[in-house]
């Protein structure tokens, strides 16, 4: 339930060493300390996390949906940017 007393916080979790934090959802909480506890309790109940980041939702700068064509369409025609034209030697292993 959204009330001014408990603003929204975005939750990011890193599941393993070497991976990046990923956005998993959001929680309502009165302040950062309680938000961290809420994130831990809501999103790491099944061993999902080694590290949690909390960000006030109102600190997120989001792209404007109206700019979608300008922002993202120009890349659609540039398939040479995908690294799919190279043979990766077996010795390299998993990338």
């Amino acid at each position, binding site marked *: 339930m959204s009330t001014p007393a408990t603003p929204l916080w975005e939750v990011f979790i890193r599941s393993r060493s070497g991976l990046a934090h990923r956005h998993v959802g959001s929680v309502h909480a009165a302040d950062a300390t309680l938000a961290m506890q809420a994130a831990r*309790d809501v999103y790491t*109940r099944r061993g999902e996390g080694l590290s949690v980041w909390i960000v006030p939702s109102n600190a997120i700068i989001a792209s404007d949906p109206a700019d979608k064509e300008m922002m993202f369409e120009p890349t659609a025609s540039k398939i040479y940017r995908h690294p799919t034209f190279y043979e990766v030697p077996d010795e390299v292993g998993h990338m």
Partner: protein
Amino acid sequence: MTTTITVAATPLARLALARADDALILGHRLSEWCGHAPILEEDLSLANIALDLIGQARSLYTLAGAVTGHTEDQLAYLRDERQFSNLLLVEQPNGDFALTIARLFLYSAYIDPYWRALGATDSALSDIAAKAEKESGYHLRHSAEWLIRLGDGTEESHRRAQSALDRLFPFTAEMFDPLPDDVAIDPADWTAEVDTILTHATLTRPSPAWQHNGGRAGRHTEHLGHLLAEMQHLQRTHPGATW
């Protein structure tokens, strides 16, 4: 089919059962919040803590059962009120959210240093203690942070938090009654920890003129019987029922 068991009271069984009963009864009380907490986040927090405590109870009942020849389920479901040796504090009804938080805080401020002290000894309970202290550390932090916010929050939350402390403090001295072959926690250390949080919370530590006891000896408040009636209903009605 057995519907009530009697348990041989060896020192180890008494110790393990007392700690197990504390954890089970408080865990059951917290589980009563499931679906009813003020916000979704806290609903999950209280359920998580309840599951931590019930998990601790299972380990302790298994240990006690190895001594007395019972299963963990028999110890939880087939003993009567007078055979439960939990603290009177943990059987007190949930009340409002402030009372639930204050009860968890007063207990956690005792049991967290207790598990740490016990985990450092060479006791039959040391392995259980080493696992439990990671859980109790979080229970203490969670309840302390909430108590600070309730006490130092609105006029109404302060009033409720102070009222919860006033109501529960006469049940706290019982925590320090010695159990057989147990490690002792200094009440002065507990009081200092509690005072630190209460100061942040702008709450006053009550000094009750009188303290209840009797839980360790099976003399309970009227609330435990009702709790057991609900918790044990299925096994009492359908003895030996399994999933």
